[in-house]
């Protein structure tokens, strides 16, 4: 947790302040997309291309995120109908069948046991709300969904904390031991010397705060000049941390430990823990059917607020860059993301398409975008000017130490973490300098193949799709640049 909180203080919160400040500053000058904002702030023709990731990332992530969102809705309805609470249910098999992980194309069917119909429902819901605009659409959903989310999480937390020892035959698997499994510190000194620990901690902070998505910068561009971006940025980070550490940290892992033991948790990733382990936990829990329904409904509410936020940067860019109205931009974005979602929906075997796009876009591009934003704030805009803009309308002051942190520490930390990330997850470095070994990871072998493994055509198609979207986006940015130049010439 020490590495986690240090990462929060030197990466998470500073990048939030940077994105909020850059976004609000661009918005005051009528720019609402990352490309437009960076183009305005740097005042150079190339600057608009630096923001292309701010369009590509949310659009591409939306394509698979909506698919995962459909899982949540499907699991909620399957829980309500009792399909997940019967005895002897093989949750891993259910997950494979429901999501289409067992074979390509199998979920293009309608039924409670397949994700297909839920993808359609979720897709229509998203575009209905996004078409209604920011105040009538996104804001209305978030205003009710977010408090509901925290309220439901508190109910589940209370239930988990009062479970005691659910199975008297396994007295070691109780709530105190579950909390200990999560919170007992190991050897702190050797842990802090382990680069993998820092990589994991920084990555968790980085991805959970959604920094570098292009979403915060767009939302902040709609603020007024006297809105407090310092307090808003800190509040957004604090709310996320409260939900992640204060609620998620006390619910998921201790609950899984109580019912499955340490051996049952080991090796479970996010999907495994959420969709395989937790249904099993709920099935063993008194009133489990109700709690499972509530939990997956909660996940769905959280997901829909996120997916709506991912569409707005694309809408903003298309509207302001191509001079089209909301109806046209929603239609164009709906068409592009629809093709992408259909691709991920069809190529569902082993979730290969989803996983490939998530890695190259949802992970690698995010790092690049966040680093670009921090460098532009500290070095392009200038820390002195950026500091003054951040404090316009702010009652809260950012501690002065953050001038140094944002200018030097955050970009250095991000670059080091990014290099380490690439070394581990792309080149497969064994973290040894004396006996360094590199064994390309699955993401690379999927694309290039090797002596033992054939390249995956789905992974190759996924990367080709990412490249196509990026080239298409660069073309749009070029077009948008001409529109912005024309607008600036006609505006006195």
């Amino acid at each position, binding site marked *: *947790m020490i590495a986690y*909180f240090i990462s929060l203080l030197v990466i998470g919160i500073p990048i939030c302040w940077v994105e909020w400040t850059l976004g609000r500053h661009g918005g005051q000058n009528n720019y609402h997309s990352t490309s437009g904002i960076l183009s305005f702030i740097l005042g150079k023709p190339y600057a608009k291309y630096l923001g292309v990731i701010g369009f590509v990332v949310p659009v591409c992530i939306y394509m698979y995120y909506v698919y995962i969102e459909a899982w949540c809705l499907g699991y909620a309805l399957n829980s309500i109908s009792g399909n997940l609470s019967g005895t002897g249910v093989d949750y891993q098999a259910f997950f494979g069948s429901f999501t289409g992980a067992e074979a390509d194309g199998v979920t293009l069917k309608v039924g409670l046991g397949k994700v297909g119909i839920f993808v359609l429902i979720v897709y229509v819901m998203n575009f209905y709300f996004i*078409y*209604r*605009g*920011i*105040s*009538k659409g996104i*804001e209305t959903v978030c205003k009710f969904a977010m408090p509901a989310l925290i309220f439901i999480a508190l109910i589940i937390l209370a239930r988990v904390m009062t479970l005691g020892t659910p199975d008297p035959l396994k007295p070691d698997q109780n709530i*105190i*031991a579950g*909390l*200990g499994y*999560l*919170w*007992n*510190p190991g050897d702190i000194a050797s842990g802090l010397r382990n680069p993998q620990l820092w990589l994991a901690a920084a990555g968790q902070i980085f991805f959970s705060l959604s920094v570098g998505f292009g979403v915060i910068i767009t939302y902040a561009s*709609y603020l*007024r000049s006297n*809105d*407090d971006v310092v*307090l*808003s940025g*800190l*509040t957004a980070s*604090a*709310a996320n*941390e*409260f939900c*992640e*550490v*204060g609620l998620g*940290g*006390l619910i998921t892992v201790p609950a899984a430990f109580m019912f499955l033991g340490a051996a049952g948790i080991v090796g479970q990733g996010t999907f495994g823990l959420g969709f395989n382990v937790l249904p099993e936990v709920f099935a063993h829990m008194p009133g489990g059917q109700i709690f499972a329904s509530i939990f997956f409904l909660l996940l769905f509410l959280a997901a829909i607020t996120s997916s709506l936020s991912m569409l707005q940067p694309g809408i903003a860019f298309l509207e302001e860059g191509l001079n089209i*109205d*909301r*109806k046209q931009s929603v239609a164009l974005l709906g068409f592009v993301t629809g093709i992408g979602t259909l691709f991920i929906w069809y190529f569902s075997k082993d979730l290969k398409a989803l996983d490939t796009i998530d890695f190259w876009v949802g992970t690698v591009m995010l790092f690049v975008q966040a680093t670009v934003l921090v460098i532009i704030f500290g070095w392009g805009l200038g820390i002195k000017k950026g500091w003054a803009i951040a404090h316009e309308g702010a*009652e*809260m002051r950012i501690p002065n130490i953050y001038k140094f942190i944002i200018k030097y520490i955050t970009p250095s930390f991000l670059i080091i973490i990014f290099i380490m990330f690439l070394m581990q997850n792309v080149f497969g470095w064994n973290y040894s300098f004396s006996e360094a070994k590199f064994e390309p990871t699955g993401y690379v072998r999927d694309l290039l193949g090797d002596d033992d493994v054939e390249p995956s055509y789905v992974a190759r198609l996924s990367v080709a799709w990412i490249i196509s979207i990026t080239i298409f986006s660069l073309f749009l940015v070029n077009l948008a640049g001409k529109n912005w130049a024309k607008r600036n010439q006609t505006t006195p």
Partner: protein
Amino acid sequence: MTTGGWISMFLSVGFVTILFLYCIIRVLRGPGGTKDHSLGHIEPVDEDETAQR
């Protein structure tokens, strides 16, 4: 659960909870809490002007 585990949990959960409550209180009690939060400065608010939002 060891003593270190209890300390680690209370410090972590306590820190994020206090920070969150502090921020919420400042947002609600500060002058910002009384500001008009409508988005009329950036988008039309009438139902029949949805396409212009």
